[in-house]
């Protein structure tokens, strides 16, 4: 059977799922290796369960970081699967299940803008991507058509934040009360707001139902309204009869022929038996999540590749990055004791303010950093009549309220539940050489595979961006008529963390960046390694720069582009 495989894909999340889907759709035989177990939101998701039904009211623990019902198997710490640090602070979020992190991710799918692919040209810093917006645009269209999304009127898009065209996007839900106030305040500040492009259906698509505005997408969506890799990619791929899946398969080495220039297959651990196995194919695609891709390549050492496979540039593991994130919790006095109303919506932000300062305006403002940040109302934290949870809702309501109990406490809860909310900002990061991973020479995981060792350092430019983000949030609060209850940026700084710990926004990308030259990059523009002709990387590892837009749509668009390249090569070779 193994011999029939034309392509081995490692990992079934955003990047791997898309790869398997595109290849099998074109009739290519694919073997998918997935470290975790089978997972299907249709049966595995807990949608309507209330906190009351879970241990500890469903609060996060070291076992389930984002709560008992979160559709994630893994988290920052996994028993027997450690990682280490060589400097700075970094936390590595992992999801080990079919579909990877797509079952619980926020479904925010903004497109990168034209400027985002040429940061070097714009600022003289970092490097440009080897392709332009025009090259990737058709792939954005195609990915969006498959995953389905709601988004704003594309004609109202602002500079460098392009939006999905009308024939693809679906109508967004109305903004919530707090978001209307947010929009009004932004308008006063000269900042445009619009629906946030989000991979949630508001109308049925390909047998998937429309959202019913009631449950939290991070628990998974069993009606298929929220995109996940299993629903949109893997199940249809299985229907083609071209996809084989091995779950419980932890890949750790790319096998090559004697020349070291051709990948022949993958060696993996069967997690059930602990046995080491090998599978072979014409092409190998790594998509186990950015950090794991770099780890596998660095662990794939051989005589021909003493520093790790596809690493002649020495760039594997380098230039990793994460989104900057900070928030304020604010109090809206007009909403004290407000009449209860349903604020669930799609459980994600309905609207946002894309980055608004460019060119001269940016210079005039003194915003001295590359890229920018976006603003939104935090759907998870604060009260705002959202789903009650201990830390995220009540922890904020009780913050700083010392000695409160009895009748006064009960009154306090009624007054503030609807009138406290979070406003947040996600910012780009200036990719720098002090953020990287290497392989720990001593520490191994429970199967004996050497683990990654991370080094993290925010740059001065990030610091300036962070200060600016925080300042804007305060202005926004003021324009919303709100007082600030808590300031996450301030708290982080007091805790010596600057913005937050690297990796904690869970948008860690890079480690195998693409470029125009084998000297300063690992991959070419089709995500193909410069050194090993038939080896591709299709998760977040190829990213060159890190902007304020969440990365996953771009991961999937690049994965599809890489898949097209493989399909073309298979055809050309008449294989």
């Amino acid at each position, binding site marked *: 059977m193994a011999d029939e495989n034309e392509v081995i894909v490692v990992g079934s999340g955003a990047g791997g799922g898309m790869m398997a889907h595109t290849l099998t759709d074109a009739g290519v035989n694919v073997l998918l290796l997935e470290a975790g177990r089978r997972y299907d939101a249709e049966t595995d998701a807990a949608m309507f369960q209330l906190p*009351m039904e879970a*241990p500890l009211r469903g609060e996060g*623990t070291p*076992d389930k970081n984002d709560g008992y019902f979160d559709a994630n198997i893994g988290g920052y710490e996994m028993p027997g699967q450690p990682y280490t640090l060589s400097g700075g602070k970094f936390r590595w979020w992992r999801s080990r299940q079919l579909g990877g992190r797509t079952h619980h991710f926020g479904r925010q799918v903004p497109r990168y803008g034209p400027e985002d692919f040429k940061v070097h040209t714009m600022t003289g810093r970092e490097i440009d991507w080897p392709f332009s917006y025009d090259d990737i645009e058709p792939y954005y269209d195609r990915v969006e058509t498959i995953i389905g999304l709601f988004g704003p009127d594309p004609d109202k898009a602002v500079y460098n934040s392009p939006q999905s065209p009308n024939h693809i996007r679906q109508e967004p839900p109305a903004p919530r009360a707090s978001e209307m106030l947010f929009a009004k305040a932004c308008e006063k500040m000269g900042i445009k707001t619009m629906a946030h492009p989000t991979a949630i259906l508001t109308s049925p698509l390909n047998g998937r139902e429309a959202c019913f505005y*009631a449950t939290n997408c991070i628990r998974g969506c069993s009606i298929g309204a929220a995109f996940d890799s299993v629903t949109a990619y893997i199940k249809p791929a299985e229907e083609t009869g071209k996809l084989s899946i091995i779950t419980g398969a932890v890949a750790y080495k790319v096998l090559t022929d004697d020349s070291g220039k051709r990948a022949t297959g993958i060696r993996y651990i069967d997690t059930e038996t602990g046995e080491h196995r090998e599978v072979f194919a014409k092409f190998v695609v790594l998509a186990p999540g950015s950090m794991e891709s770099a780890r596998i390549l660095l662990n794939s050492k051989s005589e021909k590749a003493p520093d790790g496979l596809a690493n002649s540039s020495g760039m594997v593991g380098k230039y990793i990055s994460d989104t900057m994130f900070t928030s304020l919790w604010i109090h809206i006095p007009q909403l004290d004791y407000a009449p209860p*109303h349903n604020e669930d*919506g799609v459980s994600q932000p309905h609207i946002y303010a894309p980055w608004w300062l460019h060119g001269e305006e940016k210079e005039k403002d003194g915003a001295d950093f590359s890229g920018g940040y976006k603003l939104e109302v935090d759907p998870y934290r604060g009260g705002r009549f959202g789903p009650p949870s201990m830390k995220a809702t009540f922890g904020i309501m009780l913050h700083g309220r010392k*000695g409160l109990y009895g009748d006064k406490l009960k009154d306090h809860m009624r007054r503030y539940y609807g009138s406290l909310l979070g406003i947040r900002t996600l910012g780009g990061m200036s990719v720098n050489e002090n953020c990287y991973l290497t392989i720990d020479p001593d520490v191994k995981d429970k199967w004996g595979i050497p683990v990654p060792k991370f080094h993290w350092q925010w740059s001065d430019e990030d610091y300036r961006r962070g200060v600016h983000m925080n300042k804007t949030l305060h202005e926004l609060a003021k324009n919303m008529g709100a007082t600030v209850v808590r300031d996450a940026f301030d708290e982080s700084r007091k805790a010596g963390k600057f913005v937050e710990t690297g990796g904690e926004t869970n948008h860690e990308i890079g480690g195998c960046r693409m470029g125009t030259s084998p000297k300063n990059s690992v991959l070419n523009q089709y995500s193909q390694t410069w050194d090993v002709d038939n080896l591709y990387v299709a998760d977040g590892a190829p990213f060159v720069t890190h902007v304020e837009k969440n990365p996953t749509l771009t991961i999937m668009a690049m994965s599809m582009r890489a898949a097209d390249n493989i399909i073309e090569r298979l055809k050309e070779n008449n294989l």
Partner: protein
Amino acid sequence: MSENQEKLSPNRRRVLQLMAVAGASAAYLNNYPNSGAKAQTRQKGYGQDVDVNNPVVTWDKTLNNNQLLNLTVIGDLIIPTDDKSPSASHLNITDFVDEWVSAPYPEQEKDREAIVSGLDRLNIQANRQDARFFHNLNADQQAAIFDTLAKSVEAGSASADDDFFFERLVYIYVGGFYTTDEGMADIGYVGNVPMESFDGPPEEVRKLLGV
């Protein structure tokens, strides 16, 4: 757990220190042989791959009877009955507090230590009024002691231990209570119901906000 280990437990040590400070009688330890018990018991967490459709608490509840009785009194001081919702004890929130402080996770283990030792300190105060446990005091005495504690926390004059004890107690009771049907109805959570469309806030709310 052997006698020896128990004596070495941090709670025990802290109680002894406190007693030295408070000048309480050495008979205290004989009166409260279980106050720190099981704090060190390793229990099992639920692991990373839970069956979300059949949630189970995988650890035993560990508070003793007197601790539970004390907490029941305190729970109703924190969340009393009024015309909109019942008190904490009506909804058995103390049982949830027991589940919480018995859980084998760091946050909860820290809370356990704070709460068990905080209850011990309240017992010491009860001793001064010739009651064996806080819950043996009459309602006025209980309310007075608790109010004094709350006022000192509010004024910032409470010890760090008392401050944390009070903060966490309130947090866990509030968390337990306002996630019940009655608690959610009290504050006005009306979601978790499927809808055809999401049309935004009602007119009256928009008016409040001027949007």
